[in-house]
């Protein structure tokens, strides 16, 4: 067969080889089908570990209670017991080592999330004690009068 007939073939084979070799260097070795189907399980396996190593911020109130025993005891016996410490005090991930003091959300808005009156008959929102933000001491932060750790008691301030 003549040379000029074969030449395009070598070019084509060369291109395929280049793509396959480049792919070999660019695709991580753990990339492939790791599961039942190609459709849903074709991925880079080490990414699962990467996600598992993502840093968690919220630690849970059991960890807070290890040091802050008095506050935890008061809080856990109150109507606010189901509210996590970190919902108001912020995530405790680096506390106390790097972050000495957590920034507390003492805003009215934080309390109004549950305690702003909304006229919603069939909703659990109606089961919570509620105020009208515009009328109930509008300029004052709630904790001045109410103790957020134990809402049935007046604030200690």
């Amino acid at each position: 067969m003549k040379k000029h007939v074969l030449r395009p073939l070598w070019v084509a084979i060369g291109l395929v080889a280049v793509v396959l070799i480049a792919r070999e260097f660019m695709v991580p070795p753990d990339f492939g089908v790791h599961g039942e189907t190609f459709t849903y399980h074709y991925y880079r396996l080490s990414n699962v570990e990467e996600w598992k190593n993502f840093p968690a911020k919220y630690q849970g109130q059991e960890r807070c209670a290890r040091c802050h025993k008095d506050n935890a005891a008061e809080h856990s016996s109150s109507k606010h017991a189901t509210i996590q410490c970190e919902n108001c005090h912020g995530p405790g991930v680096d506390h106390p080592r790097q972050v000495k003091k957590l920034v507390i959300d003492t805003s009215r808005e934080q309390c109004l999330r549950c305690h702003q009156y909304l006229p919603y008959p069939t909703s659990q929102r109606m089961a919570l004690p509620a105020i009208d933000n515009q009328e109930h001491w509008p300029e004052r932060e709630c904790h001045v009068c109410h103790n957020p750790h134990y809402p049935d008691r007046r604030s200690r301030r």
Partner: protein
Amino acid sequence: MSCSRRDFLKKSFGGALSAALPAGTGAFLGPRDAGASVGDAKKRWVFLVDTEACTGCGLCVKACKTENEIPLEAPITRTWVERYVVTRDGEAHVDSPKGGLEGFTDPQIRGETIDPEDISKAFFVPKLCNQCENPPCVQVCPVGATYQTNDGVVLVDREWCIGCGYCIMACPYGVRFFHPVHKTAEKCNFCYHRITAGMEAACVQACPFEARKMGDANNPDDPVTKVIKTERVSVLKDEYGTEPQVYYLGLDEKVR
């Protein structure tokens, strides 16, 4: 150059073979390597939302965005809470200001004042990624950057994602968005880093009303699985055939 048919075939097969060989090496992982990091195949994470218990405080959204490093002020979120107020004429007034990040403190809905006398029912519906059994977002990914782990959670590989946005368009629930910092597709992953370490997802932990719970569908003794198996639950957009794994208690027909 003379070349018989036999020589030609030999050469071309040999060439193709030698080119294909390096691509195949390394593609095979031992079963132990593969099993080690694809998650516990015996587990199947499921989520249960009790819309009757939700009060729309939005602490879940705040916790989620903080935990998963989603910019607080950006109009994007992995989970959000919708408010539905159905008036007597049967019309549903729906809103979700900032995804419910700051809760619902304004009785007005999209600037509209609704007469309390006119409300026949009102409720809050938390939404998040459904971790579908047949995730359409994974099917459309052209580069294999999103996938389903063996314990049923759909993850996004930020290293591998090219940001084309196909998956964002493909999700029927609109849970995917573009992460402005990482420049990749982003979505709820059931706090995969927390649940695989024995912790609760950030939103589940933050909820004061137990409106959000998680469990293992493959464990018949799991309290959440028991509720799903024995009580009247529903899922969103069942007709799409995606088999969502976020179940809802008390879901109203107005919810889409």
